[in-house]
């Protein structure tokens, strides 16, 4: 069953939460609201959240997924936290460019670059 596989895996690097999408598609409403719930919970756990989203496995995403990312970004900013996106495949990065979300969201080529881009 699809629901038995969590849509994200979460690890920690010091005070940074690293979230990796386990599915290659972020399309379905149910899947997206599940991911959003997990991210909102993570953000809620600390005062100034630092969140890194690793897109290494993602080959497709929908506008609903973009909406979820914007919502997460807005919540993190309200909490004076930081959000980074990394490892986005070229085809997916184009989606961010077309929607100009590459100007709103901080996107780094690799996970290590994203990790070192967080300010204290």
């Amino acid at each position, binding site marked *: 069953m699809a629901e038995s596989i969590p849509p994200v895996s979460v690890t920690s690097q010091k005070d940074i939460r690293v979230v990796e999408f386990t599915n290659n598609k972020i*399309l*379905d*409403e*149910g899947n997206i609201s599940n991911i959003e719930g997990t991210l909102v919970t993570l953000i809620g756990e600390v005062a100034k959240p630092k969140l890194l989203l690793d897109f290494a496995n993602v080959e*497709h995403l*929908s*506008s*609903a997924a*973009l*909406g*979820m990312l*914007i*919502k997460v*970004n*807005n919540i993190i900013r309200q909490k004076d936290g930081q959000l980074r996106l990394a490892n986005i495949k070229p*085809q997916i990065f*184009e*989606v961010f*460019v*077309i*929607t*100009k*979300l590459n*100007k*709103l969201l901080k996107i780094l080529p690799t996970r290590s670059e994203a990790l070192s881009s967080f300010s204290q």
Partner: protein
Amino acid sequence: MDEAGSKDRGPDRRSGSSRPDANGAAWFEFTISSNDDAACRAVQKKILDEVHRRGFNNQSVFAIKLALVEAMINANKHGNRLDPKKKVYVEATVTPRQAEIVIEDEGPGFKRAAVPDPTLPENLEKCGGRGIHLMEAYMNQVEWSHGGRRVRMVKRNEPDVLPRA
């Protein structure tokens, strides 16, 4: 007028029907209920398998998948408001040169011009409104008709090029 158009489609062919036309194009039509996610995915797979089989390049397959998913979400969610009594009609014609997809819902329709540009600075932080923008960026043609209830999209199988930003 629209009622007559609906009758032309014949009975509810939930599982879809297909026939090759005179030019060797693959042609499919499907009518699905608005809250039937499994049927939606099956329709998307059928069309994308055909696009793949016809030799579309990766960039075109990605574009068609993205536009198809967005158009079906729009029809189901924004058009039919997920009302299971309402149907979404999908028709696809695929040749080695192009894929043409028509999607129609039974909702109230909408005015394309009334949908704000999500890439304007004042809209960048809003969560919605990007589906139509992506469809229009990734497909070669996107035309709305029937008061916004029907969309016709065409993707030509061309060498890899970046979509219109």
